[in-house]
């Protein structure tokens, strides 16, 4: 019943579907409706899953998940349709006197970027206005209810709005007084709205801009662009060398227009609680056009530390007390065709090897010149970006560095990518900001069907790392194997008390297809083996459960044999949430 379909993209456009809906449910009716909808929503695949119950649950534990295609019910399939300059109207019945058309018994209007359904629609041919009440808009991602609305000149104006991403029910809800939807641009504006989760009001927006194609988590600035609804939870509760608990980047709503990001966020976190090295973090960040500020204070047994960044146009102040780094200065990039000249100057302090013993403090002024050349011919692309940096200190010492990167890419039946990057310093830089560390790296990747190979050789460290991944995709998911290697990585790093990062690790895993059915489960396990040290290197699994509104993720990962300097042998309990 709540089956949705992407009707049109943005512009041509972001598809909306309005259909008849009810505004008040009793709890029991709602539960019944929810179950009914869940069965209908995903079609036979989900029906089967729900009916089979426990055996299916066991199958899911084996790492299987089901998906079923959605089938559309377009307006053109209505018993009666009326082609109007406003679009295609349809319904169960129609009365038309040459001026006013009244569709009844379930009606719809499909126009550019909009598919609308309501119990009754009235279309006035003279003024080109369509009016309806008790309407519901449905896209792939959203359901919009409106008490009443009208469409004229490609703009939908509606009032009494409720918006949810939930496939059934409305435990995650945006309630708004008015909605304006421009079908040409696909832009939806909600006026005077508030966000409710399980009936608990979380935020208010004077004006909230929605893109029907965009996940709500992204619109609210709770996930990275391009992610599939994965929420960066502002509330943290997990276990990793200790309990991590508190608010992380918790959004604080403010009056005014909102589109994309909360301008102010608060962090209040207890990290590694219960371990010998617990930490209390207090942070605040603010963002507006051309300005940003972020400050974090950590309290731990070894003493307080802080880090932060304040940027206002070309002026900035950054610091990290743990690394002994402070800088106040300015930096401004100037575009000159393919060249970019960035003059800079700052007053800075740095601990060169991370201890106060090597503290440097002083002034620097200089500039970086960067040249960008890019050419694309069919599937081939070439990018060349050499640079040079010249810096003058308040000492006789000067700083000069140059380098660049050359990158070639082929994207056809297979993808091949090669990159060479290099940097040469005349003398070591005093501060981290102007420093361009000596580099000489060749890296490449090859992707073809379910196979991908990545390799990188560092000429200065004379070490090579490579990763080969083979995947076998089926309807239920992908079985994959990944071989991670690092050659000549002996004695390169002393982190974690180990000096040997030679690596020959094979990781086997299964990634189920994304959950599309309500009340569905999937499990994604993985297991790694270290061939050099002859033991299990890592293992873990993630259980995913989809309810009407969210996909809940609970995972456990344990690293038994650390494979690179950034790893420690420990277990990690993770909790994740996605908005469906």
């Amino acid at each position: 019943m709540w089956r949705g379909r992407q009707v049109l993209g943005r512009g041509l456009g972001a598809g909306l579907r309005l259909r008849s809906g009810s505004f008040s449910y009793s709890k029991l009716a709602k539960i019944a409706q929810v179950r009914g909808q869940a069965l209908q929503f995903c079609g036979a695949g989900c029906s089967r899953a729900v009916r089979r119950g426990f055996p299916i649950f066991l199958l899911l534990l084996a790492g299987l998940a089901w998906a079923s295609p959605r089938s559309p019910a377009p307006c053109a399939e209505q018993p009666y349709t009326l082609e109007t300059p406003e679009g295609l109207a349809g319904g169960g019945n129609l009365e038309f006197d040459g001026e006013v058309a009244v569709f009844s018994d379930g009606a719809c209007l499909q126009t550019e970027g909009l598919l609308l359904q309501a119990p009754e629609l009235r279309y006035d041919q003279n003024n080109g206005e369509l009016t309806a009440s008790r309407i519901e808009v449905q896209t792939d991602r959203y359901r919009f209810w409106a008490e009443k609305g009208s469409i004229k000149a490609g703009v939908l104006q509606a009032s009494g709005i409720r918006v949810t991403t939930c496939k059934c029910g409305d435990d995650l809800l945006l309630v708004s007084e008015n909605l304006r939807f421009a079908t040409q641009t696909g832009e939806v504006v909600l006026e005077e709205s508030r966000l409710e989760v399980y009936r608990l009001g979380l935020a208010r927006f004077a004006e909230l801009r929605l893109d029907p194609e965009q996940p709500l988590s992204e619109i609210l600035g709770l996930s990275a662009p391009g992610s599939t609804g994965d929420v960066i939870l502002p509330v943290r509760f997990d276990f990793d060398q200790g309990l991590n608990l508190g608010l992380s980047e918790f959004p604080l709503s403010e009056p005014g227009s909102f589109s994309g990001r909360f301008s102010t966020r608060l962090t209040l976190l207890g990290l590694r609680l219960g371990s010998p090295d617990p930490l209390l973090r207090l942070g605040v960040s603010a963002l507006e056009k051309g300005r940003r500020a972020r400050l974090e204070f950590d309290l731990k047994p070894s003493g307080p530390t802080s880090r932060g960044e304040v940027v206002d146009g070309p002026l900035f102040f950054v610091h990290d007390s743990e690394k002994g780094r402070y800088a106040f200065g300015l930096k401004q990039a100037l575009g000159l065709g393919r060249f970019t000249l960035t003059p800079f100057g700052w007053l800075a302090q740095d601990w060169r090897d991370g201890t106060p013993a090597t503290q440097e403090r002083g002034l620097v002024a200089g500039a970086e010149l960067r040249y960008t050349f890019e050419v694309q011919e069919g599937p081939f692309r070439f990018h060349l970006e050499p640079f040079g940096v010249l810096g003058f200190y308040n000492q006789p010492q000067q700083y000069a560095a140059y380098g660049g990167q050359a990158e070639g890419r082929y994207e056809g039946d297979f993808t091949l990518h090669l990159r060479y990057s290099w940097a040469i310093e005349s003398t070591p830089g005093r501060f981290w900001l102007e420093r361009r560390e000596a580099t000489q790296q060749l890296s490449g990747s090859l992707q073809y069907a379910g196979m991908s190979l990545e390799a990188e050789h560092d000429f200065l460290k004379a070490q090579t790392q490579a990763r080969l991944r083979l995947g076998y995709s089926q309807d239920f998911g992908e079985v994959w194997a990944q071989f991670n290697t690092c050659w000549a990585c002996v004695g390169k790093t002393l982190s974690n008390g180990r000096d040997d990062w030679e690596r020959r690790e094979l990781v086997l895993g299964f990634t189920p297809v994304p959950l599309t059915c309500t009340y569905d489960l999937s499990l994604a396990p993985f297991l790694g083996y270290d061939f050099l040290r002859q033991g299990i290197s890592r293992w873990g699994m993630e259980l995913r459960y989809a309810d009407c509104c969210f996909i809940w993720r609970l995972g456990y990962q344990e690293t038994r044999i650390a494979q690179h300097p950034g790893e420690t042998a420990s277990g990690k309990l993770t909790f994740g949430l996605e908005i469906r």
Partner: protein
Amino acid sequence: MDGMKRWLVLLPLLLAVVLASRFAGFEVKPRGNSELDIGTGVYTLPTGGTITDNKSGLVLEARYIQYRDGDFIRAREATLKSREGDFSAASLEYQQKPDTLRMNGVRFGSKQFKGITAQQGLLFKEDVLVLKGEVRSSDPLLEAGLLVVDTSKDQALVLGAFTFRDGATTLRGNRPDSTLLLNFEGGKVRAITRVPPEVFNRLRPYADKL
């Protein structure tokens, strides 16, 4: 050629006969010869002619006519001017009992419809016209499979999938059981898909007779 023996070739003549209620009393003007089969009583006008009903004003003109007094008139490549409008048909057959006019390859024009064509047509005594098979009209623009026109009540019932255009809007019935009632009032057409039962029950049976 036994059949031919029964044919009697007559000179062109004017006849005034009482045929039926629609063609109650009419004149026949053959374009050429008129032949009478005395065995069957069927007159044949092989080169056509004109039949005029002076009372009702019906005028039938055809390139081939065959008729029998009090029974039927058959015609090919015929035009018929009637109260309901002007018809032309590739062939038509008038039956006195019941009082019906059956046509093939019909073209019809009336005050309600202009330039309507259909594969088959059936005109009843009650001023009801049924058109079936690729029914098309130019004004208003209509495409349908079956149309029942009640000229006395200025109504038309469309049955089955249809396309109806009025001004800038185009109305379509997309299903085989679609219905559309057109009411012609004061130069405007009012279209209703939910046909009142009394209208539907009155007009629907006519459609079954074709």
